[in-house]
């Protein structure tokens, strides 16, 4: 019989090559290129500057404002999305006559790309002629500035991303809910627990793992949320939506300062990994109780 030893490697080669080159290598490339600066002065050219890009970032108020914007967005958007996703999952868990149709309709935004959602919501939220202000007017609320206001812009972005994303996270939670054995509910019902009791003592503990997964994945996804910033706010007003990902984009592609851009990407990747690790450590420690 022929030797099969090389076969798996042959089969794996194209995919692994792609993953190493286009997924792994860029992470290290970002780190490497963050050590250089491209100048246009008389000295000109690309030069190695060590950690100067990082040092420069730490002294730059724009960077710190960007950190703040990212922190605020993260703290708002993730709980909002997960709470809504969970609520929606509980809502749609119920068996009803038209449940398949209703579920499908709620899933529609998953099929709509974020740029589309952003463009349409941008028009909905237009302060002068947008649909939302038109509807608010009917119930007697004065027109709101939305994306042009320092106080509201970040919420408008949360709204857009949530409209687009909540159904996606809901799917995982719905699947988690359906995996919970019905007998457990029956048992606790016999004990006289009401709806909240069931939620507290059966649903939540058994959904813990799914929730943790959704929290981690959602957090990672929202750290790189950038489409609404590119299309609608350009980081404004007054840099309140200038999250790190957008600041990295702007440094590179508007200001042609790739050293700075790569430094931010490197920091962002590190922060993302750290936050995820923290979430897993804090929330994932009681795994034994899941069973």
């Amino acid at each position, binding site marked *: 019989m022929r030797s099969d030893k090389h076969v798996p490697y042959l089969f794996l080669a194209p995919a692994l090559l792609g993953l190493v080159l286009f997924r792994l290598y860029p992470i290290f490339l970002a780190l490497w290129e963050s050590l250089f600066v491209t100048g246009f002065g008389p000295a000109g050219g690309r030069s190695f500057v060590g950690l100067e890009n990082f040092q420069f970032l730490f002294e730059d108020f724009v960077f710190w404002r960007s950190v703040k914007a990212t922190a605020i967005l993260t703290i708002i958007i993730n709980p909002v999305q997960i709470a809504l996703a969970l609520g929606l999952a509980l809502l749609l868990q119920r068996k009803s006559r038209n449940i398949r149709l209703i579920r499908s309709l709620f899933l529609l935004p998953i099929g709509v790309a974020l740029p589309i959602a952003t463009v349409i919501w941008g028009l909905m939220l237009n*302060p*002068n002629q947008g649909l939302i202000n038109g509807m608010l007017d009917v119930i007697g609320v004065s027109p709101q500035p939305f994306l042009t206001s320092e106080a509201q812009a970040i919420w408008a972005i949360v709204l857009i991303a949530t409209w687009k994303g909540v159904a996606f996270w809901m799917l995982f939670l719905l699947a988690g809910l359906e995996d919970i054995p019905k007998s457990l509910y029956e048992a606790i019902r016999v004990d006289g627990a009401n709806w909240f009791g069931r939620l507290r003592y059966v649903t939540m503990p058994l959904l813990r793992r799914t929730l943790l997964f959704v929290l981690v994945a959602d957090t990672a996804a929202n750290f790189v949320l950038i489409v609404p910033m590119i299309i609608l706010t350009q980081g404004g007003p007054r840099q309140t939506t200038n999250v790190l990902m957008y600041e990295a984009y702007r440094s590179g592609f*508007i200001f042609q300062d790739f050293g700075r851009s790569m430094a931010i990407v490197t920091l962002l990747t590190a922060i993302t990994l750290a936050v995820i690790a923290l979430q897993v450590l804090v929330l994932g420690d009681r795994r034994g109780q899941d069973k």
Partner: protein
Amino acid sequence: MIRKSLSIATLAFAAMSPAHAQESDDLSLLVGIWAVEPLTPWVEQFTEETGIGVEIQSFPFRDLLQTIEVRGSAKADDVGAIFVDAPLVPSYAVRGLIQPMAKYLEGADLEEIWAPATVDAGSWDGMMWAPPLNNSSQVLYYNRELLRAAEIQDPSSEESGRITWEELVENAKKITDSEQGIWGMVFDQISRYYQLQALPESAGGGSGVSDDGLSVEGMLTNDGWMKATQFYYDLFNTWNIAPKGIAPGQTAELFAAGKVGYFVGGHWNVSAFQEAGIDFGMALHPYFEGGTPVTGTNSWHIGIWGHTNRADEAAQLVKFLTASPEVALDYTEKHGQLPAHTAALLNIDISPKYNNMPKAGMKLATYEAANSAVTRARTPAFLEFEEIVNNSFEDIRNGGDPATVMGEAEQRIQSAMRRYR
């Protein structure tokens, strides 16, 4: 099955070769989409006269800038000459995207061929890089009906009667009627340095950048800039005579719809307003009381591509398009562009065609271009400068404190400029 898929894949991949690998001896000329129709016959004539084939590639404004950056970073040598937006001349020159034109113009008195301000705009480091093709200017439009209803006199098109910002604001307050969605005034290029530079300049604040183009320290927070930015803040937040949340490009429509009293904007809007059928007039651009009359301006230039190895031929083309009086006259007469060429400027002055509307608007624009126009800040970091200043104007419009916003803008630009020193 697999053979079929593979052959499809092969075919497809053959079609994927990089986008610009055209096999052609033609010199390519990258232009703005608006210039294709006027320039095509002249480019053909150039080919006839010189035997040099030219391929015109056209792009909308943003795409043009982007394409130039892209081809520059690829060091593409298949480009011959490019359109250059005036304020980007230093940036392109410093980064090697264009080559100096000076040696091809030796012996010529440049200010005899082109209006002096446009010669300045095309120069950097003491020499000519990109000669001007056309110019543009800002004027004051007003809605006759709205002014009459508020019992306000038409603004003047004579220098002695040029309206001040202070006067305009008082009038605009009377015109504004938020119930009806009527606004007192609006800018064409709202929150864009391109147009708003006129405010600090008129208040004595300067362009915002030092003479060597490498510093903004104290230049965006001086008295003139503070007066101008406070004024801009008040328009939207104190007096509420101008609308928030409307982007550049939308404002002209607002005026065309009869919903704005005063519209400060480019001379090229005339025909659109005529088509809209509103009763409007044109007057000289406003200035601050006690300050100087200043207008924003923008010329378009053509430069030799930095990475071309056919610079001599490209230079011939640039010279032909920018320095021939016939081209300039045609571009002005038929296509309503404000000329940079002195022959075409003279023609506007003496030809009776320019005494009536809409062409009379051109005369007004020519007057502003010659007497009140200032070039934009001259700095190789213009892309960064403009982006940050535009954002700052927009933040102020949305209620940001002018002193804080401009102070931060100054810091940000100053640090962005470090890479150019």
